[in-house]
């Protein structure tokens, strides 16, 4: 009898327990979100926990600024744990996630905010060189980033510091759209502005902006020469006053200055030089006949000089011409300079041979020891009557009806 009750009891127990099992398997599948935190600092490990009633492992879709992926959960004690990979949890912005299961409509967003610790001050300065005068400026752009290469939160204070000559200045700017920027204007002086910035006690390295002098203003020129004779041999040197910009900064070396020389006949000679310490010099050989030079210099399109006038006096007063060898040999000279010295070698003498007012031949030679010799070859000039003209140092001599035989 005792056993009978025991058996019945056991039977009931088995039956009821099997009933419980049946009941268990009929539990409806449902998911409940356990994680309540939605804002995280970049770099923290994010584990999304979802309570489930059954042991299944649905995938989780997640997507952040840089891409999308699927996460597989770990199931433990009716809790699904989705660990977000570090490349997702370390980038700021919105993470959108959604549990992929027909029975589930669990989805949500996490906001990842940057660590407020600056790891690097990404700095961009441009343009690297500007003009003095307070009008031109360069722009400093700073992107403070945390150690995970995230830009810092909006309105982070960035202190910009700059030094120029005696001036040292600090300005506070705030990040907006991830960056902080500041226009740095030039002063009146040329030189170099040193710039750095600081955010949350992290300092950037030093950057520099070169301030070049502005464009030159009008200037003066002067000429120096060893004498005022038109000997075609000495050199006249032109030089400018110190070229400066409007703030009196000496303009940059290498500025190109052109000198234009206009003579009596209206011909223009041109010479040029580049500045060193604001002064440009240039040279021009003396004319070989008496004339007046009017000289003006330009930094083309930008500035010009005053006009100076130089007079050159004639040195060769007259010259002799001798014919020999049946008039075919023509000797010009002596050509004498201002102290009656023989003119230095190289004075140009031109010979023209005319026949019936037509030029047959032009010969050009330069003087040597004060003389120039021409020879009219019989092969070229048949025995006949010709007119012969000689020109040198602005002088002209004509010999009509010379008979060559």
């Amino acid at each position, binding site marked *: 009898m005792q056993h009978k009750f025991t058996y019945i009891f056991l039977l009931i127990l088995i039956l009821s327990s099997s009933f419980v099992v049946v009941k268990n398997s009929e539990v409806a599948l449902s998911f409940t979100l356990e994680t309540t935190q939605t804002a995280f600092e970049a770099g923290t490990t994010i584990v999304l926990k979802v309570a489930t009633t059954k042991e299944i492992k649905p995938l989780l879709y997640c997507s952040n*600024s*840089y*891409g999308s992926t*699927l996460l597989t959960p770990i199931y433990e004690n009716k809790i699904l744990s989705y660990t977000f990979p570090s490349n997702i949890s370390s980038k700021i912005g*919105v993470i959108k996630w959604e549990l992929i299961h027909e029975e589930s409509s669990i989805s949500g*967003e996490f906001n990842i905010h940057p660590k407020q610790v600056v790891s690097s001050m990404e700095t961009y300065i*441009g343009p690297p060189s500007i003009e003095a005068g307070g009008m031109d400026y*360069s722009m400093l752009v700073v992107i403070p980033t945390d150690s995970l290469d*995230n830009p810092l939160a909006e309105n982070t204070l960035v202190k910009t510091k700059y030094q120029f000559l005696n001036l040292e200045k600090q300005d506070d700017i705030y990040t907006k*759209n991830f960056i902080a920027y500041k226009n740095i204007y030039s002063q009146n002086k040329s030189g170099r502005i040193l710039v750095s910035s600081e955010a949350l006690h992290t300092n950037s390295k030093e950057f520099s902006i070169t301030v070049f002098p502005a464009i030159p203003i009008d200037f003066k020129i002067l000429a120096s020469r060893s004498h005022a004779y038109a000997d075609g041999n000495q050199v006249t040197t032109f030089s400018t006053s110190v070229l400066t910009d409007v703030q009196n900064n000496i303009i940059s070396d290498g500025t190109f200055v052109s000198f234009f020389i206009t003579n009596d006949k209206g011909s223009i000679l041109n010479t040029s030089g580049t500045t060193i310490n604001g002064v440009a010099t240039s040279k021009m050989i003396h004319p070989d006949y008496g004339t007046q030079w009017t000289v003006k210099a330009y930094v083309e399109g930008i500035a010009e000089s005053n006009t100076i006038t130089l007079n050159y006096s004639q040195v060769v007063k007259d010259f002799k011409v001798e014919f020999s060898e049946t008039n075919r040999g023509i000797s010009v000279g002596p050509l004498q300079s201002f102290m009656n010295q023989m003119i230095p070698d190289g004075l140009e003498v031109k010979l023209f041979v005319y026949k019936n007012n037509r030029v047959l031949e032009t010969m050009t030679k330069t003087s040597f020891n004060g003389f120039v010799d021409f020879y009219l070859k019989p092969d070229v000039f048949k025995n006949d009557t010709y007119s012969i003209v000689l020109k040198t140092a602005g002088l002209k001599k004509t010999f009509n009806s010379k008979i060559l035989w």
Partner: protein
Amino acid sequence: MVGLNKNIVRSLLLGSYLLVIVIIISGISAVFVYLNTGADRSKMLHTELKKIEQYIPKVDWTPLNNEGRSMDEVTLNTLENDYLDAWYVSLVAYKTNTKDVIKDYFTDNARENRFDFIDLNIKNRITIESTTLEHHPTLNFYSEDGHLAILTDTDVLEYKRVFKDEKLIFETTEKSTYKIILLLEDGFWRIRHMVKVSTENYQKENAKVASSNLNIRGINYYPKDTPWDMFGGAFSKNTISNDFKIIRDSGLTTVRIFVQYDDFGKANVITEKLDKLKQTLDAAEENDLKVVVTLFDFYGDYSVLNWTLNMQHAKTIVSELKDHEAIIAWDIKNEPNLDFDSRGELNVIAWLNALIDLVKSIDSAHAVTIGWSDIQSAAILKDKVDFISFHYYEDLDNLAASIKSLKAKAPNKPLVMGEFGMSSYSGLWNPFGNSNNDQADYYEKAQKIISENDIQFMSWTLYDFVNIPNEVVGGLPWRKNAQKYYGFIDDNGTKKAAFKFISGQ
């Protein structure tokens, strides 16, 4: 004899010696020439990169009002190009899980973020097919030296399909806003920082178009001599106008015509073709006919990366013609369900869904439908279309029952039988085919079912055709010949017996 042999051996030896020398010298010279070919000067710059349209999402810039330096049109264009290219290479990279081109469009630091994702997805065998359909960028900042720009790209419409082990797991359309810092490096605008500021799921609610009073009683139309090549060199508005007059006089109200994707120049719609299409619509208007324009015919690639190109195609045509009086409805795609097997049903449906949204966003006045090739598929996307259209070439005895079941699935949608008809071909390839009288009987019966079930219709087709391109039904003569004799009017211009039943009146 011996002497001769000796000479032969000698000449052979000499010849082979010469041959070996020639081969060696030419080999060495080839190596020498190869080593002397250096980099091509013309390739030093990026000038040889030809721009091929492969990704044309809608881009709407908000009017420029940025901080910093004022932006010019040329730079903004370059910036936009590089920015969109950055998106495109990323989309390709996530689809193929390769890193090749990323580095051209992301700075050293930023590209690591992409690479990490690609590595993660490779490890988990995940691929993502995606595209972006709309961008609304605002330029926030442009630095004084022109080397740094900040954009806010608002409401970027992203369509994504996520695969794991090549199985589609998840599909989503998201609308997100990004803030982006770009740097000008090596002549490229490269992304330095990219932060998603907000994101939400996107579901477009299209305005419904009243479709209860459409009264489509029509016919599918191709000209007699140029079937499937309506807008080619032989285009003649006169011919079309005459045909439209015949159609109108027969009591019909509507024609259905086809725009072929390649023929119209794909994304860059050829103006000349568009003009011919417009002339066709003019002809219809003159003859008091309405036109259903099928936007995609002979198109079978639904890949997500090409969506923007397809949309450009549809956008150009729809925005150009939406105000034309003759338009009654847009048929998005002719018989898309035929591509279910080869391209995947989900691909095709997602594509149709996106295209409907696009067409409706441009033209909210006209009805939109899809030309399903059978009545079984017709309920797909029933809530997106304004009326349901299906083609029916099966046994007429089952039509009434099929219509009934379709009406049960989609109770409030007008139904249009967009194509139906019978070939009157009997001949060498099908001796037991149908005669002209069989065709007439068919139409009589069909019209009876149509009026009994209160549906609308467009029959196939006005003319018997002489030449049918192979692309239509393939090259098999029995198919081709059958396809030639679907007309109400034969190739001599004589009305067949069926013409009596063309409009059911």
